[in-house]
C-alpha cells in the first residue's frame, strides 16, 4: 500500500511538469484562436458574451486585403524555388560525397553547418555590404532572396538528405542498377530517389515553412513577402492579422508536425532531423 503510494507520488512530479508545460504551450494558441474568431473585446469578455459573435469575419477581411494574394504568391514561389535549388544542389553533392569522396564527408558536413555561424540578421548585413555595392541589379529582383534562403536552410536540409542516404544502402542500389545495365540517370530516378522520398519530402516541407515565415531578411531588404505583409497588416487589424497568423501556422507548421508524426514510424533516424537543429 505505502509502496504503491510512493510510486504514485513519484509519478506525480513528472505528470505535473508535463501538464504545466502543456498549459504554457497551448495557452497562446487558444487565446489567439479566440481573438481570431470571436468579435468581443477582451475587456467585455464574461459569461454572457462568451457564446456571442463567433465568426470568420476577421479572416475574410484578411483575404480581401489587396496585398494578400500577391505577397502569398511571391512567398510560395520563393519557397518552390528555394526547394528546387536545394534539391538540385544538395542531393547530387550528398550522393557524390557518399559514393566517390567519402573522405570529404566531414568537411562537407562542416561547410553545411556554417550558416549557423552567420544568422539571418548578420547575413542580411552581408548582403547589404556586398551585393548593394557590387550587384544592385541582383538585389532588385524579389527572387534574389531564394539563394540566401537555400543557405539559411542548409544545415538541416543537408542533414535530412544525408540521413536519407545513410538509411538506404546507396552503394548496393547503385551497383545493382549499374550491373543490370541502368544508366546513371536511370539509377538516380528509379533506384535512389524513390528510396529517399521520405527524407526529401520532409526537408522540402521544412524549407518551405522557413521561407514562408522568414521575416528578418525580407523586411530588412524591404521585400513584400507574405511575412512582411502579415506584420504590416497585424498593425492595422489585429483580429484579421491573428486569423492570418493562425492559418499560416496551420498551413505550414501544422502540416510539418503531421508529416513528422506520420513518417516517424518509418524511419526514426531520418525523422530526428526534421527539425532545424
Amino acid at each position, binding site marked *: 500500500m505505502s509502496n504503491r503510494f510512493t510510486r504514485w507520488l513519484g509519478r506525480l512530479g513528472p505528470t505535473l511538469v508535463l501538464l504545466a508545460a502543456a498549459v504554457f504551450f497551448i495557452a497562446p494558441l487558444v487565446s489567439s484562436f479566440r481573438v481570431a474568431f470571436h468579435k468581443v473585446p477582451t475587456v467585455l469578455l464574461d459569461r454572457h458574451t462568451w457564446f456571442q459573435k463567433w465568426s470568420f469575419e476577421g479572416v475574410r477581411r484578411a483575404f480581401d486585403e489587396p496585398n494578400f494574394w500577391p505577397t502569398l504568391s511571391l512567398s510560395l514561389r520563393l519557397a518552390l524555388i528555394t526547394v528546387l535549388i536545394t534539391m538540385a544542389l544538395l542531393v547530387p553533392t550528398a550522393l557524390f560525397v557518399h559514393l566517390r569522396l567519402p573522405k570529404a564527408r566531414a568537411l562537407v558536413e562542416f561547410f553545411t553547418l556554417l550558416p549557423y555561424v552567420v544568422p539571418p540578421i*548578420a547575413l542580411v548585413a*552581408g548582403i547589404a555590404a556586398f551585393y548593394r555595392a557590387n550587384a544592385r541589379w541582383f538585389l532588385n529582383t524579389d527572387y534574389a532572396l531564394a539563394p540566401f534562403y537555400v543557405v539559411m536552410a542548409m544545415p538541416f536540409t543537408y542533414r535530412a538528405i544525408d540521413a536519407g542516404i545513410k538509411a538506404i544502402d546507396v552503394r548496393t542500389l547503385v551497383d545493382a542498377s549499374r*550491373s543490370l545495365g541502368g544508366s546513371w540517370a536511370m539509377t538516380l530516378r528509379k533506384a535512389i530517389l524513390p528510396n529517399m522520398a521520405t527524407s526529401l519530402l520532409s526537408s522540402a516541407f521544412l524549407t518551405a515553412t522557413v521561407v514562408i515565415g522568414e521575416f528578418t531578411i525580407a523586411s530588412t531588404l524591404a521585400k513584400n513577402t507574405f511575412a512582411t505583409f502579415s506584420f504590416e497588416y497585424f498593425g492595422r487589424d489585429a483580429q484579421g492579422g491573428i486569423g492570418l497568423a493562425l492559418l499560416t501556422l496551420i498551413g505550414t507548421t501544422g502540416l510539418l508536425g503531421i508529416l513528422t508524426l506520420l513518417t516517424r514510424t518509418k524511419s526514426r533516424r531520418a525523422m530526428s532531423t526534421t527539425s532545424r537543429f
Partner: protein
Amino acid sequence: MSPSSAGTPPASRERRGWAWLGLVPFLAFLGLFLLLPTVGVIRKAFIANDGNFTSDGFTSAITDERPAFANSIKVSLITAAMGVVFGTTIAYAAATARRPKWLRSAVSAFSGVAANMGGIILAFLFFTLLGRQGLVTKILTDNGWNPYESGFSLNDFSGIMLVYMYFQIPLMVLVTLPAIDGLKTSWREASANLGGTTFTYWRRVGLPVLAPSMMGGFLLLFANAYSAFATAYALNTQANLVPIKISFFLQGDVTGRSPLPYALATWMIIFMAISMGGYLILRKRAERWQR
C-alpha cells in the same frame, strides 16, 4: 555526378584528385551566397570612409552600443539557463513516462514544431495572451492582480524573455531527449546493486552522462536567443537588442558608409562562432553514449 562507373576497382590517385571537382557547384554556391556576404560584413567593419584599414569602428561599436550588448547577453543567458532547466526536466518527464504510449513522440514532434516557431507569428500569439488586452492579463486583473502594474510588459525584456521560452524550451527538449534515452536502466540497477542511492546514481552516472548535452544545449540556446530578430522586433520594434540595432542601422544607412551595423554583425558572427563551435564539439562528445 561523374559518368564513370561505380563498379570498377578503386580509382587511381590521379582520378581521386579529379573527384574533388564534384564539390565545385556546392562550394561555389556557398562562396557566392555565404562567404562573399560574410567577408563583405567583416571588410566593412574594418574599412574607414577613406578606404584605410581601421579597427576603430569595430571596437567603438561595443562602447557606443554597450546597452544593446548588455541586454542581448542578459536575455540570452537567462533564457538559455531557464531553457536548459525546463527543457531537461520536460524531456526527462516525457522520456520516463510509460503511459500514455503516444506521449513521448507527441512531445518530441511538438518540440520540433515549436523550436522552429520563433518569429512574428509567435509574437502575435503572445499579444493575445499577455498583451495589455490579453486573455491571461484580463483573467489576472479580474482576480485582483494586474501584471502590467507590477512591472511586467510584453514589450520589455520581461515579456521578450517569456516569449523566447516558447522556442528555447522545445529546442532544449530536442537536444536532451536523445541523451536521456541513452541513460540505460542497467546503469541504475548496477548503481543500486553496488549500494548506491538515487543521489549517488545521479551524481556519479546520470549527470556526467547528461552534462555534455546540457552544456552544449546551453551554448546552442544562447546563440539562438542572441541572434533572434523577428520575435523581438514584432514585440517591440524599439527594443535595445543587438539584432534590432543591426537592422535599424542598416535601414538608416543609405550611403553604406557607417561601419556600425557591420561591426555589430561581425561581433555577432564571433559570438556565434564561439558558441556554435562549442555546441558542435560537445554534441560529438554527447553522442558517445547515444548508440
